[in-house]
């Protein structure tokens, strides 16, 4: 019998992380795209750091940082770690989306008396839909694929922090190849379908809508 709990935990973690990342990253990417503050390059570099750092480095620092708060080895701790780990996968697509918009869109909205937030919600975000979708999907998929960070912060506790990627490793260690293969196959099929959908949808967005 396959234990579905690790898969369910992975999805729950990825879903919560993606929703929170969306809420955090929209204002963050907006600020990075339009702020004239010179020091923002430092923030951009910090956000992208998890893309190049070994997950164990991030895991180590997060472990140190979270230890006093008793969040280590809890699901909440996993969510916090995932937010840092997947942040660039949400912020970077949104940032390039904002940067690719013609400045006249934002300026035209301002000249019509609309505030920054109305302009963001009604004008800018609808025009970066492909970037939003890319950010959502990449963050979701990347969180599902976490291994090093979740191992260090979560500690592989069944039912609490033992996500699918850890379960595969566990089953492998106990030579239970059939179970490992089932988890691996689900993750493989899911990741492939997600990326396929992103490419198909972005392809659709890049063509003008003939119905309008």
């Amino acid at each position: 019998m396959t234990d579905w709990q690790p898969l369910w935990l992975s999805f729950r973690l990825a879903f919560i992380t993606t929703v929170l990342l969306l809420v955090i990253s929209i204002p963050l990417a907006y600020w990075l795209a339009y702020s004239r503050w010179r020091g923002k390059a430092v923030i951009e570099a910090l956000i992208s750091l998890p893309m190049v750092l070994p997950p164990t480095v991030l895991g180590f620092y997060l472990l140190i940082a979270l230890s006093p708060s008793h969040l280590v080895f809890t699901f909440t701790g996993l969510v916090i770690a995932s937010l840092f780990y997947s942040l660039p996968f949400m912020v970077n697509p949104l940032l390039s989306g904002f940067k690719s918009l013609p400045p006249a869109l934002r300026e035209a909205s301002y000249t019509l008396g609309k505030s920054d937030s109305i302009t963001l919600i009604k004008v800018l975000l609808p025009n970066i839909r492909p970037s939003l979708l890319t950010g959502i999907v990449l963050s979701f998929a990347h969180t599902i694929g976490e291994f090093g960070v979740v191992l260090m912060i979560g500690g592989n506790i069944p039912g609490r922090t033992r996500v699918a990627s850890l379960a595969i490793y566990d089953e492998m260690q106990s030579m239970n190849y059939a179970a490992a293969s089932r988890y691996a196959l689900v993750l493989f099929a899911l990741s492939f379908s997600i990326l396929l959908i992103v490419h198909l949808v972005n392809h659709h967005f890049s063509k003008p809508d003939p119905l309008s």
Partner: protein
Amino acid sequence: MIQFQANKTLLTAAGRQQMDVAFEVKKGKLLTLYGPSGAGKTTILRILSGLTSVSSGYIKVDGETWYDPRKKINVPTQRRSIGFVFQDFGLFPHWSVYDNLRYALPKGEDPHLMHELIELMELGSLQHTRPIFLSGGQQQRVALARAIVRKPRLLLLDEPLSALDDDMRHRLQDYIVKIRKHYELTTVLVSHHLPEIIRLADEVIWLDKGRIRQQGTPEKIFPGSAPDSPHLILSPRTPEP
């Protein structure tokens, strides 16, 4: 009445140059900014709208100060009563023509003017079309309608009729004359089109390298006699229809 004075370093293709311009426009009058590219025409519109900052200067519109660094006043673009027609239109691509105009209409405002504009600009059959499917001239008409729909105190037009054919250009010029009279819209127009300037402008400022070279009525600026008159330079390209 607009009182405008601005100092700014312009970065042009020819390098840095200092802009130093001051002028006044009486209420309901139309001022045309004329001159070669890089002279600072669009920059003046952007400064008036608050989209571009200046090193020093002041802007006062109908007695209300929009910009005065000495008094630490800089009214944000959103709170300046302006209608701006951008050179590249700045239409919102995800909305239909109708929705573009509707967004511009202030909350609680009577949509009567919007419907009137749709009719006058002959946008009725296009109102459910998105801007990407419109020609340059059609987009320009939408941009003009959208700028006027909120009845701004100051209308800023950056070559608003350049993509139109002569017939439509004439009709819209007539319309601009009419709507300006009706709403007493003070207007600053950037234009290269001499017949248009003669027809619409109450006053012309001929800018060159960030400074005012000549200022006066169209008849004074374009008598067609001075050897370096822009009329002589431009007349072969823009014959009177």
